[in-house]
């Protein structure tokens, strides 16, 4: 799967798609392939909750492991994608089309500090995949 060029990426394998002051957050194709079949999504935060960059905002569980999802930037939750609770397999099937949170961004410079698609691809390769 090719990595979408319009997204930014964290070192903990989350993607962020920015639109003005708001953004969507999800997990990367690398993350879902490492986890394998995802069976649970648990949201740690509710709408209107504030969070810091790197804070754990959700947990996903696969048949192999559980993993924390970290906020790639600081902000506030605008919307939670509740469809994923019943259909967590969407994260496997369409990682870049399945967002976990819609957020408002607190500090746009935090977005600039994230990796672009090309850098993230290299980052994944360096980890032996």
């Amino acid at each position, binding site marked *: 799967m090719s990595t979408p060029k319009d997204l930014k990426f964290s070192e903990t394998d989350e993607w962020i798609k920015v639109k003005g002051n708001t953004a969507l957050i999800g997990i990367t194709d690398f993350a879902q392939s490492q986890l*394998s*079949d995802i*069976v*649970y999504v648990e949201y740690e935060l509710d709408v209107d909750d504030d969070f810091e960059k790197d804070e754990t905002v959700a947990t996903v*569980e696969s*048949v*192999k*492991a559980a993993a924390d999802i970290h906020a790639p930037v600081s902000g506030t939750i605008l919307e939670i994608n509740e469809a994923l609770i019943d259909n967590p*397999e969407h994260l496997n099937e369409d990682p870049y089309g399945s967002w976990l949170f819609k957020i408002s961004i607190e500090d746009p410079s935090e977005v600039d500090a994230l990796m672009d698609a090309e850098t993230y691809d290299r980052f994944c390769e360096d980890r*032996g*995949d």
Partner: protein
Amino acid sequence: MAEPTIYEISSPGRTGFQFHQPDVPVAQLPAELKRNDLPFPEVSEVDVIRHFTRLSQLNYGIDLGFYPLGSCTMKYNPRINEEMARLSGFAMAHPLQPIETVQGNLALIYQLQEWLKEISGFSGITLQPAAGAQGEFVGGLIMRAYHLSRNDLKRTKILVPDSAHGTNPATSSMSGFEVVNIPSDSRGNIDLEKLKEICDDCVAGLMLTNPNTLGLFEEHLQEVIAIIHEKGGLVYGDGANFNALLGIIKPGEVGFDIMHFNLHKTFSTPHGGGGPGSGPVAVAAHLVDFLPAPVVGIVEEGDDETPPLYGFITPSKSIGRMKSFYGHFGVLVRAFTYIAMHGANGLRNISENAVLNANYLKKLLGNAYTVPYDRACMHEFVAEGFWDDAPGIHALDVAKRMMDYGIHPPTNYFPLIVKEALMIEPTETESKQEIEHFAEIMKTIAHEAHTEPELLHTAPHHTPIGRLDEVKAAKDLVLCCWIPPEE
């Protein structure tokens, strides 16, 4: 052939039990207490016996064959353990009996406490915890109580290496701490620089499994302990892998402050099939007062004529009771027997052979599997269950294929820091021939992965039930063999 459930065997009106003619007047149950919605299976005695005997024959256990389940130390459980645990004085004792009538049982607990302290180099111990994870929880609460007793209120963090057992972050969190992850370096040790950077005076302690889950001895153990102690933190030892160290290292003497044992791993006792476990927690002198209550001690000294009177003692700053009564006594009897049968030299032999077996097996596998962090291992090692030139083959396929050869698969997908991990622990109770046989099977499977990948993808083929749908099993939980009809 799949065995039907007991409900599927049920036949209306069939019964395997008759009430005796009552010798008291018969009374009718009030109507409001009667219910018709609970369907017991209607079966005869022979139906029951055959059903459960067939199920038991489908089971796999250490008594049937090799069981290299990494980190679980699935060693053979000597039969003398079972004989001792069945002695009526042990098996029939009631925990509320007056202590004068169970002095033998208390003496056994006391002696086991003394032996475990000697083996581990600690000053105090509780045998209460039900298993390893509860032992960790006890450790977390003791750390908390210790810092609070010194009015040291800023310590909110517990450090946990990324090679730790999954229970370590869970129990730290349950004890009220924030968990901070410490990465491993390229040799599979704790990253010392990172540790120095992260460790400050807000750290309550470090939870360290040594050897770690890669089966590797922490090469900078003394430095790691010193870094934590320098900042006023405590070092907790996860004793799950203690089978590598018996008679070789005493964790209490190298600076650990707390440690739990897994009696159900290191000291045999039944383990596969879900327990029961037993997770005693030993502590250094400065933490003895915080141990859960009660601990067994001598309440009246004896003399030449009379033996001492054993009873219960409450440590002065005890964190309280962790479990009803005195722990899993039956497992304590087995561990006592195991230690008594082996003696000090025997215990050291156990660890030496466990380490030798693991290294021999690792060597036999040669290049068939990649073992990252390739250095001499302790009692277990972690191999990768994938090959770049065998696309689509995963550790799960390798593990499932092993079942076709009559072997219990190793732990897989753990530790998380190894890709497609297969964690293999042969234990000391397997013979050289058994280990060679297992190595041959693993090599055969590696060959099949390259030549007949479909064989692995669809494995197991020779078990009563084939490949299970793990996703469905995790998502659609049905925890009852009888599903109530919809209203």
